[in-house]
């Protein structure tokens, strides 16, 4: 489904990803871990097509499409979803109007019929229950004045609404207390399916207690230096990143 080869990305002239390789198959959950500044978030933003992330080498193929040739919205139309680490606030933009625009823009791009207001409402209410999001927040401006946990739930709600083929969840666990983490994890687990792949980007092993990955990768210095299964995450939890950084430097 997703194939990344020798990806190199600069931000403001600084080389962050230095030849990253990753293959994600349909229905798989990959956890990407690594110390701060290793390039985890850069990978997620480069996948979503954010301006300022300059790809200087390598390739990213998604279902055979060259992502580098596509705008962020076109990538979303193909089924890529990025759950943000810091979801931005959109004052004055109604959450429900936003989600309906988003869903219908994607449906239009795929040649599907738009969802009418009634069908949309039904769907958003169902999905809001999945992440235990207060319906009042649907009527407010997107993320404006939401707590950290509410913002993350709103991200997972959008993922549930858009039903992406590939969801990249960028430090979705950061800033969450244990109860909020459980709710988010339950929401994500409910969305696991044989057609849907998930990339979990996280600094801590804790999230992986709740969302069990098929693969765990460690990024150091802009490259994946080690891959394994969930045992690797437990090892990291015990020993920290130091030993793996030393190995990578050696």
């Amino acid at each position, binding site marked *: 489904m997703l194939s990344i080869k020798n990806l190199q990305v600069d931000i403001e002239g600084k080389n962050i990803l230095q030849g990253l390789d990753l293959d994600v198959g349909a229905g798989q959950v990959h956890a990407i871990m690594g110390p701060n500044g290793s390039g985890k978030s850069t990978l997620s933003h480069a996948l*979503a097509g954010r301006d300022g992330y300059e790809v200087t080498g390598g390739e990213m193929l998604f279902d055979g499409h060259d992502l580098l040739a596509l*705008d962020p919205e076109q990538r*979303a139309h193909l089924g890529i979803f990025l759950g943000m680490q810091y979801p931005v606030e*959109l004052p*004055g*933009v109604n959450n429900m109007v936003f989600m309906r625009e988003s*869903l219908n*823009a994607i449906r239009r*791009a795929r040649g599907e019929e738009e969802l009418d207001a009634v069908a949309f409402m039904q769907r958003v209410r169902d999905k809001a229950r999945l992440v235990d999001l207060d319906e009042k927040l649907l009527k407010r401006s997107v993320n404006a004045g939401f707590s950290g946990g509410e913002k993350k739930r709103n991200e997972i709600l959008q993922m549930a609404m858009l039903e992406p083929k590939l969801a990249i969840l960028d430090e979705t666990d950061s800033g969450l207390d244990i109860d909020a983490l459980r709710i988010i994890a339950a929401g994500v687990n409910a969305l696991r399916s044989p057609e849907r792949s998930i990339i979990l980007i996280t600094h801590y092993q804790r999230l992986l207690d709740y969302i069990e990955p098929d693969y765990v990768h460690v990024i150091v210095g802009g490259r994946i230096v080690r891959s394994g299964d969930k045992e690797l995450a437990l090892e990291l939890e015990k020993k920290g990143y130091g030993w793996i950084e030393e190995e990578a430097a050696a």
Partner: protein
Amino acid sequence: MTTADTRPSWFEQLIMLSGPDSPGQSPAWLDNARAQARKTLAELPVPNRKQENWRYSAVEGLLKNSFHPTAGYVPDPQALDPESLLLPSFETYRLVFANGHYVPQLSSSERLPAGVTLGNLRTALGSDSKWIAGWFGQAAGHTEHLFTALNTALANDGALLHVDENIEVDRPIEMIYLNPGQDDASLIQPRNLVVLEAGARATLVERFIGSGKARYFNNNLTEIGLREGATLAHYRVQDESRNAWHLSSLYLSQAQQSRYRGTTLAFGGAWARTEYNAHFRHEGAECVLNGLYTAGDRQLTDFHLDVQHSVPACISRERFKGILYGKGRAVFDGRILVDRQAQHTDAHLTNDNLMLTRDAEVDTKPQLEIYADDVKCSHGTTVGQLDPEQVFYLRSRGIAASAAHRMLCLGFANEIIDSIELQPLRDYAIHRLAITLNEAVARG
């Protein structure tokens, strides 16, 4: 450069034209007001950029036209496309003016509640003009402002609204000013008077609509008197022709505990300025001014707000938002004066501007002058661009860049639009803003 020494010749002609009507044609008080205004018109210096009030809004372009009144104009109601004027599902009592002339065929003021007078100035002068005499020119004066004098010197028609004590008008009152233009330089000067007696409540919607590419100068003036405890919600939509000049002069006179809530939506005009003058002389009054404006290529939109607190315990709020694109220009000058005796004043002003292009320009100038020591006052202005993080967020959700820009602009404007309490007008505002935003986004 036009200076006081080089007064445009059309002014001189207007001064002559505005000479007294033949005896008995209009009441003496009006003849007197006009005569005073003529004197002012002949004496006051012409605005120029050296005057602080006109520093950012060049009037040379306006003055070099040779405007003349539309005295001979006779409105043809059918040609004015009456259907296109009306907002869907908007039930109002309505006055319609075309090029400043009242059009009874398009107006609708039947079944007005008892105690409500709605009509045009010229007709009223022929019959019941006593109450008008008590208010006319009181708030506006004749001596300080050149364009006020110009309006007064030639005043002969406009809208009138009077609401008796404790009457609540059951529908919004709508005043529509159609400006099809008659030729290249029509001078259109509605002279309006709105008076709410003690405890009265009303909602007023004024809409200025210019057609096509008409070139004209709409120099309208509205005096508003609110007696004790009266409440007026006042909406103004300025959608003049893109070749037009527009100057709205509003003068408020508020008694104790009266409440005025004004909302201006400004989309049109080549050169459009709104001046609000609110002077609190009675305690416990409240004045709220909201505004939303847009300006693109070859457009200047200007707001001058002058709020003076001369007595204690009055409340004023000013909240204005602008979206500028292309080579659009805006001027915002918001002055709040709090005199020494005006303790417990509560006055706040904000002006936010969203610049969609590098070539757009805004001059924003909040001025707080506070001489009392126990007050709550603040002001804040911002000038910014669309946030790339917000744009990326929307695009990552499948929304095209142009649609993302439109959504964020609507979001920016939403605070003002959301404060409109009339659903049909709110719908109109969203629809009208979307047209401008489509133009802005296409312009890039």
